[in-house]
């Protein structure tokens, strides 16, 4: 661990960036900056002069960073991606998690291994959270659509709530579908027939 390392996070997702920055600070890294803006990204990076840059893979600005590998007058310090011929496993884990890291050329790999591991685990944790949230939201909207379908059936077929639900469930089983799917077709059909 090397608390003096200057780390820049480029991530358009504020929540994920915050989770990552917190993690890095907890681990003892004190110099962590997040860049939000995508315009003049390179100028911002040069003014911060980081040792390590972390960027999410959904960010088109990754290609801007490719310019830092170039030998030209605009480059102050050569930067390399945290990967070499022997590092296939590390980059695979990073790409899987949706993150990529760049380091100042010449910086010893051991000094930033911990940072990369932390990025990977935080990115994975964020992805898990997002998935759970999505599932919860889906469940909520499924429940809403089932409620609407039940209401339609109760009115049209003049049955009680339990019976309407049983009808949806039976149809779903017969057609090998989810109850929410059958409910959605009931709702769609009712709207068409309005």
């Amino acid at each position, binding site marked *: 661990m090397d608390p003096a390392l200057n780390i820049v996070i480029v991530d358009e997702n504020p929540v994920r960036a915050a989770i990552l920055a917190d993690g890095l600070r907890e681990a003892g890294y004190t110099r962590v900056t997040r860049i939000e803006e*995508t*315009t*003049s990204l*390179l100028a911002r990076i040069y003014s911060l002069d980081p040792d390590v840059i972390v960027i999410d*893979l*959904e*960010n*088109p*600005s*990754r*290609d*801007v*960073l*490719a*310019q830092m*590998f*170039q*030998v*030209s*007058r*605009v480059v102050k310090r050569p930067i390399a*991606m945290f*990967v*070499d*011929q022997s590092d*296939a496993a590390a*980059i*695979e884990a990073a*790409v*899987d998690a949706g993150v*990529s890291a760049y380091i100042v050329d010449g910086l010893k790999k051991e000094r930033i291994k911990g940072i990369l591991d932390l990025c990977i685990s935080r990115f994975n944790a964020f992805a898990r959270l997002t998935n759970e949230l999505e599932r919860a939201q889906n469940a909520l909207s499924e429940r809403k659509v089932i409620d609407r379908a039940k209401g339609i059936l109760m009115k049209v077929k003049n049955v009680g709530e339990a019976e309407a639900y049983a009808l949806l469930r039976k149809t779903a089983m017969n057609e090998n579908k989810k109850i929410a799917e059958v409910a959605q077709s009931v709702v769609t059909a009712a709207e068409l027939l309005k």
Partner: protein
Amino acid sequence: MSDDSLRIGFIPLVDAAALLIAVDKGFAAEQGLTVDLVREVSWSNVRDKLNIGLLDAAHLLAPIAVSSTLGIGHVKVPLLSSFVLGLNGNAITVSPALYGALAAAADGDLSNPNSTALALARVVAQRRKSGAAPLTFAMTFPFSMHNYQIRFWMAAGGVDPDEDVRLVVLPPPFMVDSLSSRQVDGFCVGAPWNSIAVELGIGRILHFGCDVMARAPEKVLAVRTAWAANCGDVLKRLTVALVRAVAFINEPSNIDEVSTLLAAPSRVGVAEEIIRRTLEGRMRMAPDGTSRVNPDYIIIGRDGAARPERVYAAWLYAQMVRWNQAPFSADLLAAAEASFSPDLYDLALSEPTSRAHAASSVVSSVVPADHIGAFAGPLFDPRDVAGYIHALKRPAHGC
């Protein structure tokens, strides 16, 4: 024929057409291939995912296929290109202010890249004299045709793209904003971004890419060389599907269907009309409505354009040497040339299905003697790359 699954990456651009149509029209399925198309947001992503095997094949900037093979600028992963997905398709767009300055400084016609390059040199010299900030230009990636085209054009007028102007990488979706906020004065990018700048009234197309180079190798279908060695038959069938797709795309009566398929949100995701105009090379050049038609604006496999000629790879490597991205060596040149495989293309073309469709493409333009056809400089000779580069380094004239 066995059934094989492939994951293929692409960037949402019109020159992914052959790949997208091969899948969406079922030509890949006809070859027993189930293709999972993966839409990506950056060339860095496409390259890395192809390198580590998350993708089997990719729509890739032709220069990256060469640089990855040589290990220049990044990890060395040898790639093989069996199909050129597109020639040309870029344009150089400038702000109305820079267009005005070029018009005032030019001796000749502004449609002539020689005149505009010399005019640019004069504008650059004037700005330097008056203490104004250097002009800023954007392109899409260090290893891209956009980079080499805009550099070639500037250098032909005596402008040093590394010293006299700022040349920066910008993701295409940010180009138009940067032009309107005056952070850049011009850019070289593919469709539809030039047209969008014109439509918004903030840019003027100065040159088509094909004004700078008649036939520039823009995008290829690339696979890992190691993968090709194991999956040669799959690659051949994929190439057959691509041959079939370019024949379909180049049949004029299919243009509506092709434009509709490509316009889908999961594909290129822009308006059908923009795609149709791009494919036809029918472009609005300026906010005042001036337009221009050039069928060579983008070439998707027409006139044998999909054949991955080795001279393309050699030429791309020569550009890397010219702009100090790579050292020159005979070994690197040979490795670059070997990464383009006309043999694989010819093998796919010799399949009965391909032959019927290959014959239907109409030859409507002449292939230049050196296959590239640059507007200035010496003819490219892959056997004398050093001489070619030396000839380009002659001191500039003009200003």
